[in-house]
């Protein structure tokens, strides 16, 4: 029974991991850039939420998500417009990788210097401890809500990309950056919105993860690796694959923690590495 509970909790954690990965997958799918600074932006959004809930202790920290999401969107827009767009068309595929890695180092160290290296967490009071009892299984409300939220967000994103004009423009830009210009689309501007959206999604994941477990300015690397593993495990550019990938990683991590309480992310990393050897194309192969 305890193992069933572990598996279910792993699946719920996986919903959160999928949220970490989806922003990364979106940017990669549209502009072929792996944004290495994604993890640092997530940690920064968690710091913002902590800061805001210290300023307004009477408001629920979960409501802080709204301003943090808005801020993250703006930051993403600017980040793309000022920095990433300058290398996105570089003939050298390594340029965006190196550039975003440089940005991640800057952000990490600025966060350390500004907020200090202490361990932080976001308190949501009763909600984080509340749980449901179904058929003798103990299931946390907060993880359950997170998984539902992740699934809803994935559906919404899928709908937006499939059925709205914005979605069509984004998909067209992802396919042929040079041709969409003929229809009056400015690819750079589309990228700005996509990066904004990506960081907004990352902020949701970042804040919810901060509720679940504590974080430091150095947590960004961990979050990036999880996000990246979710994307690769799920198959590139496949949203539902990302959800599956997240669930697989969440389960691997919690089973690992049951076997060895201080394993951390080791078993999630191992699962990723083994999957890479067996199925380099991911669990689900499809496109945006």
């Amino acid at each position, binding site marked *: 029974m305890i193992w069933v509970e572990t598996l279910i909790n792993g699946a719920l954690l996986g919903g959160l991991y999928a949220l970490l990965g989806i922003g990364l997958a979106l940017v990669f799918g549209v502009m072929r850039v792996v944004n290495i600074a994604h993890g640092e932006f997530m940690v920064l959004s968690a710091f913002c939420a902590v800061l805001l809930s210290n300023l307004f202790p009477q408001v629920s920290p979960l409501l802080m998500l709204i301003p943090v999401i808005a801020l993250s969107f703006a930051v993403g827009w600017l980040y793309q417009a000022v920095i990433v767009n300058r290398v996105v068309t570089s003939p050298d595929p390594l340029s965006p990788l190196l*550039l975003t890695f440089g940005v991640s*180092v800057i952000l990490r160290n600025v966060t350390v*210097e500004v907020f200090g290296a202490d361990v932080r967490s976001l308190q949501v009071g009763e909600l984080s401890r509340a749980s449901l009892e179904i058929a003798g299984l103990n299931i946390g409300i907060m993880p359950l809500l997170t998984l539902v939220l992740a699934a809803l967000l994935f559906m919404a994103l899928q709908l937006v990309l499939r059925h709205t004009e914005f979605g069509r423009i984004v998909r067209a830009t992802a396919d042929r950056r040079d041709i969409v210009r003929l229809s009056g689309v400015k690819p750079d501007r589309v990228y700005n919105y996509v990066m904004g959206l990506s960081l907004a999604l990352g902020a949701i994941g970042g804040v919810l993860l901060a509720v679940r477990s504590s974080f430091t300015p150095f947590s960004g690397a961990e979050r990036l690796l999880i996000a*990246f593993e979710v994307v690769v495990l799920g198959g590139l550019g496949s949203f539902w694959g990302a959800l599956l990938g997240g669930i697989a990683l969440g389960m691997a991590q919690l089973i690992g923690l049951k076997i060895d309480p201080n394993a951390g992310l080791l078993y999630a990393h191992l699962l990723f590495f083994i999957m890479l050897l067996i199925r380099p194309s991911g669990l689900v192969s499809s496109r945006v």
Partner: protein
Amino acid sequence: MASTIVLVALIAGAPFVLNEGFLRLATECLLLLTMAQMWNLLAGYAGLVSLGHQVFIAFGAYALFLTSGWLEVTPIWVLPVAPLVAGAVAAIIAFPLFRLRDAYFSIAMWVFAEIIGAFTMKSQEVGGTSGMPLATSKLINFDWFEPTMFWLAGGLTLVTIAALYKMMTSSFGLGLMSVRDNDLAAMSVGVDVRHNRFIAFVLSAAGCGLAGALSFMGNLFIAPLAAFDVNWSVYMMFIVIIGGIGTLEGPILGVIIFFGLRELMTGPLGLSGGWYLVGLGIIAVVVMIVAPRGIWPALRDRLGVRLLDVHRAAPRPATATILPGASERVTG
């Protein structure tokens, strides 16, 4: 040739002139320069960016500490173990990792380093999280320790740069650069892309292993958090990016900027190490945007200076110069 003799004489004589603190700094500089050259061999010449190169530094260093302890000999005599172990590890993991390209390779390397780091912290045989001291440190003659470390680092740096220069002017280097510039075109003229990348990867790992072993031998202590620190990759990358990726002179310039800025910011300006990394990161990002090939290539083109240039002129087209007799000689 003359410049080589001058450099060797400088390195041989420096310990008699410099004080101990400065000598340590110079040793650190030289080791980091070697690591940066090795990272550059992979990124600048083979087109593979590794964000997990710290794993080879750690493998080299742990190999040295363990073998020296087992055999109970002075660490200097077992130094060759470090590059062998690091190179062997690289040769093994190259098989799965080479199926991945670009960013996938980079991050998979990082995940690999994380996995090995996590296992190291769990292994009590190598000291777990708290690390272990160099068991044979009592065999070291401490009167000559700092100078010896400096000579080893200096020798390694000179040999590395000379070997890289030799390699890049050979047909292997030409093949490597052709793969970086256009792998399809390189393949079409018969360059074995995978083979070239494999050699570069193993050499790069071996070099980092040796430099890492020397670095931790100087500390007489090793701990997983320091050995598997992702900042090793950050340093190597920033040095190469700022100085000039894909050039031999670039990392030299990069190391000068790296240490110059560090001594300036943490010394007279009194700033913390964090702000130093922020400053270095900003320089790297600005360089990547303004001069994507780095500072050295931009300077070189402006000033027309050539130091360790491995650039080749295209062969002159044989138009109209072929005399009636000459064409027969060519075909015959």
